[in-house]
């Protein structure tokens, strides 16, 4: 298993991310970092075992990929099934209920990542004692923030329940629409707490913004590199987390492709398989695997969008883009700031929707000309999520291809790990600082490795250093 030549460090498992993975750092004979890889070591096989299942079951089945952002899978699959049943335009109630579900999901997922997974690094520093650099440490030193994190998650989860029937793994989105509307009583409950949630979202954005601006000099180079960026984009160029066309830009903001109908995504995106990871490596076809890799998620979305259609998030976007003079921001650690801009955007969208009477409509489902193939895309909290299915005339799934957000970020995460390892590894000792810096770089992407391999588990970390002859020189666990 181990490479015969270079020294080898393994970080396994990586902590405070969703899923199970490990990092291997290969050293050359001069003990310099030769290569670093993030391996995703889980395997689940959803794409195979949903074959034969009826298509209307898929939005409920396939969301079991994940317990963090099942709504994204639920909605992406439902959007693909809309295509299958010929529902080209949903009713206003169906579309807005789904959007509300999605913004509730984005709100709770971003809050979870920021408050529970990332805030220990930002509040205590990368070198702080791991005994306090965790969510319990945050709860002890910053109890009001810990409570906010929990309450924001709860708010988002309650929205998911009101729109999909359950806080986790609901059934709301069905092919061609939605199975319920939002009652006045449900709406009023959310309106009661809305201003408090907005206020907390503003506070979280301020923490992320201040941290990034204050430490910009150090962060600018931390695990950073130029990359392409990809996301869905609305027809007028606005950020749209629920629906749009594909836009890809290079690191300077030049468009690689724009307003591409995602039903034909296979012409523009391909996936490469490498033998050392269960996670595939997508790339932009026209650029090839070497140059065609790209980033997705909050940072990419901020970079690709011409504007955000909610006022507070738009003001925050302008400030964010000003840091890089309006050009794409390629700073890996800027993911956190961009993620919190989206958190506020989600809160603003929730507010907009709750004041829309269409949510109380009763026209829930449409159908049209049945098709045999459908693609559903959505901007999940972690980035663009692709669901692609083929259905036979007996209504059974015969092909499924899922490209999840974390898979798009596979190459960037590997690059980030390699950059951090090169910058911070000295000698053959695995220090706590290195261990955590590698994790910090991975964590910036908010990866869900379970989704990425359609696997499940959690992710503690172990680092193993192996000499040229295969001898284990050092092992360290977080």
């Amino acid at each position, binding site marked *: 298993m181990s490479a015969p030549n270079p020294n080898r460090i393994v970080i396994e498992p990586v902590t405070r991310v969703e899923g199970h993975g490990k990092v291997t750092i290969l050293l050359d004979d001069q003990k310099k970092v030769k290569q670093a890889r993030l391996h995703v070591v889980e395997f689940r096989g959803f794409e195979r075992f949903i074959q*034969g299942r*009826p298509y*209307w*079951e898929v*939005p*409920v*089945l396939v969301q*079991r990929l994940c317990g963090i952002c099942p709504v994204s899978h639920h909605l992406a699959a439902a959007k693909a099934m809309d295509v299958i*049943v010929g529902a080209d335009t949903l009713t206003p109630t169906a579309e807005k209920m789904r959007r509300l579900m999605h913004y509730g999901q984005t709100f709770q997922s971003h809050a979870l990542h920021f408050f529970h997974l990332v805030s220990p690094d930002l509040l205590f520093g990368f070198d702080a004692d791991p005994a306090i650099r965790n969510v319990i440490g945050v709860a002890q030193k910053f109890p009001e923030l810990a409570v906010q994190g929990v309450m924001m998650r709860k708010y988002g989860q309650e929205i998911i329940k009101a729109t*999909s*029937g*359950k806080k986790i*793994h*609901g*059934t*709301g989105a*069905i*092919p061609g629409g939605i*199975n*319920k509307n939002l009652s006045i009583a449900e709406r009023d409950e959310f309106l009661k707490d809305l201003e408090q949630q907005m206020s907390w979202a503003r506070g979280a954005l301020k923490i992320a913004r201040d941290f990034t601006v204050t430490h910009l000099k150090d962060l600018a180079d931390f695990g950073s590199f130029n990359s392409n960026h990809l996301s869905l984009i609305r027809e007028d160029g606005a950020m749209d987390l629920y629906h749009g066309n594909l836009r890809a830009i290079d690191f300077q903001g030049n468009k690689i492709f724009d307003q591409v109908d995602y039903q034909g995504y296979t012409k523009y995106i391909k996936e490469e398989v490498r033998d050392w990871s269960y996670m595939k490596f997508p790339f932009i076809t026209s650029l090839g695997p070497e140059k065609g890799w790209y980033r997705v998620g909050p940072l990419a979305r901020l970079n690709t969008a011409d504007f955000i259609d909610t006022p507070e998030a738009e003001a925050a976007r302008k400030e964010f883009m000003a840091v890089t003079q309006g050009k794409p921001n390629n700073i890996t650690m800027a993911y956190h700031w961009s993620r919190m801009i989206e958190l506020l955007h989600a809160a603003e969208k929730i507010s907009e929707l709750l004041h829309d009477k269409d949510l109380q409509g009763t026209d829930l*489902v449409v159908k049209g000309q049945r098709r045999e193939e459908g693609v559903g895309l959505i901007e999940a909290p972690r980035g663009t999520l692709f669901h692609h299915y083929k259905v036979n005339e*007996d*209504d*059974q799934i015969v092909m499924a291809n899922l490209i999840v957000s974390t898979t798009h970020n596979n190459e960037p995460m590997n690059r980030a790990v390699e950059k951090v390892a090169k910058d911070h590894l000295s000698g053959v000792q695995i220090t706590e600082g290195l261990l955590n810096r590698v994790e910090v770089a991975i964590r910036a992407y908010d990866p869900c490795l379970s989704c990425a391999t359609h696997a499940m588990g959690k992710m503690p970390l172990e680092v193993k250093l192996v000499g040229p002859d295969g001898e284990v020189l050092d092992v360290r666990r977080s």
Partner: protein
Amino acid sequence: MSETYNFTIDGKEITGRPGQTILQAADEAGVYIPRLCAHKELCAHGSCRVCTVMVNGRPQSACTQPAGAGMVVENETPKLLGMRKQLIDMLFVEGNHFCMFCEKSGNCELQGLAYRFGIMAPQHPYMFQKKDVDASHPDIYIDQNRCIVCARCVRASHDVDGKSAFGFVGRGIHKKIAFNAEHNLSETKLAATDMAAGICPVGAIIKKRVGFAIPVGQRKYDTKPIGSDIEKR
């Protein structure tokens, strides 16, 4: 034949009418005896044994046993509850019941009984048997993974619909639903409007393209346990 008679279930006085089974008399009196294969519009089958009660100290299936004057019937006893839980448990592990993405969830009688009995997880090991799926019919989908071999569809198709679309093949653990056709379900005369197409207590026979149209919270057993409709009487 219009004379009534009395017997007891768990000490409660029940009035029966001639020709009634214990199950039928209990239903009329608002006493719920759990069941799976029994259905009020079909003849009794007595195969699932979930409705087993003690009649004068002997086990009998309530759906087939005629009620009689002076009978002493035990229904809700720890021993019978334990036995019923075992039966439900075995049905779960013998099939491949994935409630989390089954569209019958919330309306499923097997799941409803498991909830009523407080079964949190099966006690027996899963068998993970390979089962067939037949999606050939334009309006009906058969998933044998979920079939509990209750024969409701067999009886409904034969006795009520007059089509005999279903039957059984195999014995013991290999027993399964078969279709009155050379190859698959689409060759039968089964229609979505037939009683046989809508009478399955689990998600083995479902009407296509209905899926999850009923939201969580409005399904049959979301807010009240199975049997509540009878106990209300």
